[in-house]
């Protein structure tokens, strides 16, 4: 998964578990950037009577580094508050919820949004309503209207949304975590000698029909960058983006009141910038430590990017398919291509008309060159597909980040730093076999772009 349940400790704390981060120049709102961070992975839509919600005891943040040091220059902070209208009923709602003010809606959430810079914090909105979860046609008729009502304007020309959305990230989890099986190529897998697969099979989207909770904000580019000319070659056009969730250090179960009590300073428990970095590159024993640190401290993890374990595994799992990758991995050479893509950004001059370089500080951030306009015809393979507006130049909700990163690790991007290297033919073809069409809920053409969440009624488990 992009970052769902990616580390041992955070996998036990789904409310604080970030799953995906998106950052892109808004295709329908020129001059703005959309930032989305998803939490609470793999929500089964029929999960009542206590439907999914944000944690009142979790501090959710989306950070922007516009100075290249791997530390936040700007942070958008979301703090939630839950209100229970009638504690004497077991019901989430006692009738149809037809508006955000419906008296039938018993348990609702509100939030405060603040914008923090390094020297001050500004409240952008308070008492902002979340929509309910999508329950079914009796409880949440006209769900799209409810969700639309939960899009709030904020000072400075932006807007914000926090609530349930359809999972937009597509991945064949069932196969990939079955010892690196990629169904479209499974007949080529060594199968550990068991000879189970004899022909290719289509990918299966394991996240289909599941929901997440999104915090999404759309703001003018000028709110995020540190001046600059607004031209693509200007490094000041590039921002680094990541999300974090933090909890107070102490949490005690107060049995007398049947609730948790929290105290102490907030400490980071979840982090996500580029998809799949903590999930696939960082070793199991260091994943939760990685989650607790800022990108500025990622130098200590850089070797796992420069020498990814998966690059050594692919030639073993698929014998004879990746001979050039096997030689590259065996040479011990650092994967400078992956370091550039994931840790520093790609410098000017490597790809014509493109750069998203933030400097020499190695930090896992999703880097977006805000001066590159949205593509008229987006390619889900982003830069690999010749689309400068797609991943790893930020990330759009439809980008096929699994295939892009698989191919990059398989050596497809190594010629960016060594033109004498010839990638294996498979490096340009490897995929888990999914596309945005593998997602049942259609993406939206407008903010917040992720689709209407699946309802419990229409999406049985």
């Amino acid at each position: 998964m992009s970052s769902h349940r990616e580390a041992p400790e955070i996998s036990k704390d789904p409310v604080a578990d970030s799953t995906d981060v998106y950052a892109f120049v808004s295709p329908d709102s020129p001059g703005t950037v959309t930032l989305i961070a998803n939490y609470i992975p793999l929500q089964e839509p029929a999960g009542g009577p206590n439907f999914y919600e944000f944690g009142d005891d979790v501090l959710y943040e989306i950070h922007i580094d516009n100075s290249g040091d791997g530390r936040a220059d700007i942070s958008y902070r979301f703090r939630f508050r839950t209100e229970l209208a009638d504690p004497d009923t077991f019901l989430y709602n006692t009738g149809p919820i037809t508006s955000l003010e419906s008296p039938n809606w018993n348990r609702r959430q509100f939030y405060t949004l603040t914008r923090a810079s390094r020297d001050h914090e500004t409240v952008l909105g308070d008492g902002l309503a979340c929509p309910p979860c999508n329950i079914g046609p009796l409880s949440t008729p006209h769900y799209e209207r409810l969700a639309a009502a939960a899009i709030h304007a904020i000072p400075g020309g932006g807007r914000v949304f926090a609530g349930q959305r359809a999972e937009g990230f597509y991945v064949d989890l069932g196969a990939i975590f079955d010892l690196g099986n990629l169904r479209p190529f499974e007949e080529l897998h060594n199968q550990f000698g068991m000879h189970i697969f004899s022909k290719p099979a289509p990918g299966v989207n394991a996240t289909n029909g599941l929901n997440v909770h999104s915090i999404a904000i759309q703001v003018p580019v000028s709110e995020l960058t540190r001046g600059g000319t607004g031209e693509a070659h200007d490094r000041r056009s590039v921002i680094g983006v990541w999300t974090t969730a933090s909890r107070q250090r102490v949490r005690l179960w107060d049995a007398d009141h049947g609730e948790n009590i929290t105290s102490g300073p907030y400490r980071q428990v979840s982090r996500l910038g580029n998809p799949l970095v903590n999930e696939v590159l960082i070793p199991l024993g260091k994943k939760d430590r990685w989650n607790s640190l800022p990108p500025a401290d990622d130098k200590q993890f850089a070797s796992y990017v420069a020498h990814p374990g998966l690059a050594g595994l692919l030639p073993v799992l698929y014998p004879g398919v990746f001979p050039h990758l096997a030689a590259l991995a065996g040479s011990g050479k650092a994967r400078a291509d992956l370091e550039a893509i994931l840790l520093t950004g790609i410098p000017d001059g490597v790809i014509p008309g493109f750069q998203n370089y933030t400097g020499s500080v190695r930090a896992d951030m999703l880097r977006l060159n805000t001066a590159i306009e949205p593509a008229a015809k987006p390619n889900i393979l982003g830069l690999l597909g010749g689309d400068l507006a797609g991943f790893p130049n930020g990330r759009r909700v439809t980008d096929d980040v699994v295939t892009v990163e698989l191919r990059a690790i398989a050596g497809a991007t190594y010629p960016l730093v060594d033109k004498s290297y010839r990638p294996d033919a498979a490096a340009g073809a490897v995929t888990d076999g999914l596309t945005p069409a593998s997602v049942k809920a259609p993406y939206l053409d407008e903010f917040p772009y992720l689709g209407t969440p699946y309802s419990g009624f229409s999406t049985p488990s």
Partner: protein
Amino acid sequence: MDGTRGDSGNAGTSDPSRRVVLRGVAGIGAAAAAAGGLRSGFPLAAGAQPPAAAHPAYHEPHGDPVVVHVRDAGTGELDIFRGTGHTRLRDPDLAARLVRASR
């Protein structure tokens, strides 16, 4: 001290060298006393019975709950949490009394 005993039992306080979490000392006064060394008036002194009002301290109206974590009973290192604040102090005598009170 039922509530305190139950929690400390879960934390495994039979061994003083192990980390101990004690909850719910009594609000603002206790926090101030702890910061100053707490030589008197601490509600969980050895052998003392806690006042009836001490137990539900989390909901007392005068402020946030105070949580004391005995990091190391041997050195007397204590973490005190309140609101979003954190204070660390070294007070072997206080740590020893907290450990005794937790049994």
